[in-house]
């Protein structure tokens, strides 16, 4: 028997899981339209690979990962691309995000699926394969999985933790997946194990899911692998990656470190499942299991195509008339979907129909009385009331002193707060303000260095010009005697007193030099300035602008050059 550890804090809200566990997973029907956001994972925004009007096949890559931490997206079904444009995102902000809209043709025509034997692939190829199949963490964090599949160089990988805890109330998608498809999950875990080579593989499942535990144990036994399937005590947020790692291994991963540095890595069961599907069947991630529950007539888990609009999805569960909102994710950490047009994405593990009866409106926020209930509930042992005090006063420096960034936003503190303070909201606010400040600061630093560079260049140019003027003057002076001799008889003003000629000459020379300078600049100016030190994106932007300008009516520019003042006039 594995020795289990405890994490401090946590809460035990009512689980509400039973309703959606009554029926097995069902396949959701094909929606009328699929809206596939290109950016569905942490990391870089994939570039679109398709154009409007193009016909795509089911599983065809429509967005390519643009850097290492990024994952591809695929067409969930065959059909025609009818738009590539910003659409409402499944995000609390209500903002839009670049999406590919596909009108399905109903034929569900697959691309040529190529199963691969992962043993024959080099680890690097295997990771690329997973990236291009769009495998990301399906627990909700959607971090590209391939980027987590390398052990730290200096620390041997000791434990691979597989997260089947599913601690959020209402949510049952992992539970049913483990009950029904345990074998494929275990096979997926084998892939992860072979890549990471840990000493132990620990599968943690909350003890309120006996069927899932049973099914996973059987699958492990059937496949003859030495994975340990362990029941962990049911307590929110036992399914948080850091909490589960703590419970199973006793290791605590702080915000400042990555888990491989401590010899441990954690994946969700659904991630292992999709990884296996991607390798053994050549199927990229185009669907996921989504729990539809809450205030609906028929709560159930649906295998749903990514990109299905929320409005079409909820019809499957027949929401009751008093439903006033839809939450994506669990009731502890989820958010309210901004509209029925927003699509389901890789992170959509659960949709909860809410009603005023189910989720009563929040009680008015009272002042904090520092009772410390939040500190007791915080699984990261923070002092939420101190964080709140300083977040509220916008004293962000202090919030960081109190380890704001170790907060995992699990919501335990808000849940227990007798003053009904939306603590997590304050922390998110403080975090995004700090991030914004960081961005501003970086921009300011860049601007400063560019400004200084420009000043330096100005100085240099000025110095160079002065030097040129001086040289020109010297050259003139040597020429002068020859030029002056024939003019010796002209009136006196041509030969002014001793030191005056220098001034007059200098002025004349300067005028000439300036004219030459103008001419030189005119010549030079045909060359584009300021193009060194540009990043790739900036070059791309310039390229795009050039292309646009090429299309712009050429005569306009020509006409208007007449009005132009002399170029490069300095002083």
């Amino acid at each position, binding site marked *: 028997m594995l020795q289990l550890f405890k994490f401090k804090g946590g809460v035990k809200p009512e689980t509400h899981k039973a309703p959606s566990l009554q029926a097995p997973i069902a396949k959701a029907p094909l929606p009328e339209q699929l809206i596939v956001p290109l*950016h569905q994972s942490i990391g870089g925004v994939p570039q679109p690979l398709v154009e409007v009007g193009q016909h795509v096949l089911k599983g065809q890559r429509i967005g390519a990962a643009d850097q290492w931490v990024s994952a591809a997206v695929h067409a969930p079904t065959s059909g025609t691309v009818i738009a590539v444009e910003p659409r409402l995102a499944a*995000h609390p*902000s209500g*903002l839009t*995000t670049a999406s590919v809209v596909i009108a399905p043709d109903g034929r569900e025509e697959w691309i040529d699926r190529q199963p691969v034997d992962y043993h024959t692939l080099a680890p690097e190829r295997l990771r690329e394969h997973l990236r291009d199949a769009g495998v990301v963490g399906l627990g909700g964090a959607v971090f590209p999985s391939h980027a987590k599949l390398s052990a730290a160089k200096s620390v041997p990988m000791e434990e691979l933790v597989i997260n089947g805890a599913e601690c959020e109330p209402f949510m049952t998608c992992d539970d049913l997946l483990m009950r029904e498809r345990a074998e494929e999950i275990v096979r997926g875990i084998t892939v992860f194990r072979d890549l990471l080579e840990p000493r132990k593989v620990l599968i943690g499942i909350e003890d309120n899911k006996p069927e899932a535990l049973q099914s996973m144990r059987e699958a492990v036994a059937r496949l003859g692998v030495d994975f340990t399937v362990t029941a962990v005590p049911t307590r929110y947020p036992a399914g948080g990656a850091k909490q589960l790692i703590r419970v199973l291994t006793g290791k605590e991963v702080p915000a400042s470190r990555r888990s491989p540095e401590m010899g441990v890595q954690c994946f969700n069961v659904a991630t292992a499942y999709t990884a296996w599907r991607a390798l053994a069947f050549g199927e990229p991630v185009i669907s996921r299991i989504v729990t539809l529950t809450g205030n609906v007539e028929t709560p159930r888990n649906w295998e749903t195509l990514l990109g299905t609009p929320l409005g079409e999805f909820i019809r499957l569960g027949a929401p009751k008339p008093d439903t006033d909102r839809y939450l994506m994710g669990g009731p502890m950490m989820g958010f309210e979907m901004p509209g029925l047009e927003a699509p389901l994405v890789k992170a959509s593990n659960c949709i909860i129909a809410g009603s005023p009866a189910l989720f009563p409106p*929040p*009680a*008015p*926020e009272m002042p904090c009385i520092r009772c410390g209930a939040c500190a007791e509930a915080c699984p990261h042992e923070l002092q939420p009331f101190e964080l709140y005090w300083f977040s509220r006063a916008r004293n962000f420096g202090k919030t960081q002193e109190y380890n704001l960034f170790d907060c995992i936003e699990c919501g335990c503190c808000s849940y227990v707060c007798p003053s009904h303070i*939306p603590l997590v*909201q*304050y922390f*998110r*606010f403080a*975090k*995004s*303000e700090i*991030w*914004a400040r960081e*961005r*501003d600061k970086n*921009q*300011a*630093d*860049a*601007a*400063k260095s*560019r*400004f200084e*560079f*420009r000043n330096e260049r100005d100085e240099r140019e000025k110095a160079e010009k002065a030097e040129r003027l001086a040289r020109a003057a010297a050259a003139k002076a040597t020429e002068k005697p020859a030029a002056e001799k024939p003019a010796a008889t002209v009136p006196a003003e041509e030969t002014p007193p001793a030191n005056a000629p220098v001034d007059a000459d200098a002025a004349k020379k300067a005028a000439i030099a300036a004219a030459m300078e103008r001419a030189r*600049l*005119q010549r030079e*100016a*045909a*060359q*584009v*300035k*300021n*193009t060194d030190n*540009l*990043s790739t*994106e*900036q070059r791309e*932007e*310039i390229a795009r*602008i050039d292309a*646009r*300008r090429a299309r*712009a*009516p050429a005569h*306009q*520019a020509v006409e*208007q*050059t007449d*009005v*132009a*003042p002399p*170029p*490069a006039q300095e002083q």
Partner: protein
Amino acid sequence: MLTAILIMALGAVVLGAALGFASIKFKTEGNPLVEKIEAILPQTQCGQCGFAGCKPYAEAIAAGEADINRCPPGGQEGVAKLADLLGREITPLDAEEKPKQLAIIDEHTCIGCTLCIQACPVDAIVGAAKQMHTVVSALCTGCELCVKPCPVECIRMEVIGESLETWKWRYPIFEIKRAS
């Protein structure tokens, strides 16, 4: 009376000597404060404070010659930070606070005069004489210095909108009054 004068004079001499010695021994140069102040300023180099760039303004603040509330891009928050650093009282910003902006050149109107290129303090405008110019948006600080020099008024300032990447969680405001 004489002793009194003598003793006071003696004291003055001794203390004066000690101070004179100290002033040589503990001589300080430069002012590291300027850097700290400059780090707070937004580096738009816009000159709206009346100084030619952020550094001169920082120097003026450090020397006590300028108020801390003269930087509109830094906003009221910048004032608060400066007040915090310098232990001064927070004063209201001496200008209107504006949202962050970006300069946009209307490429159909641009005549390629390069005046804006010369005006840009951070080299964020690219282009050549008699050819259209454009703003590299990632580098633009929104200082508006390029707007005035343009002879054909083809540069406008646009407020930068939010994207999913720059979106911020809002300050939680609950209408306690309405709720009660």
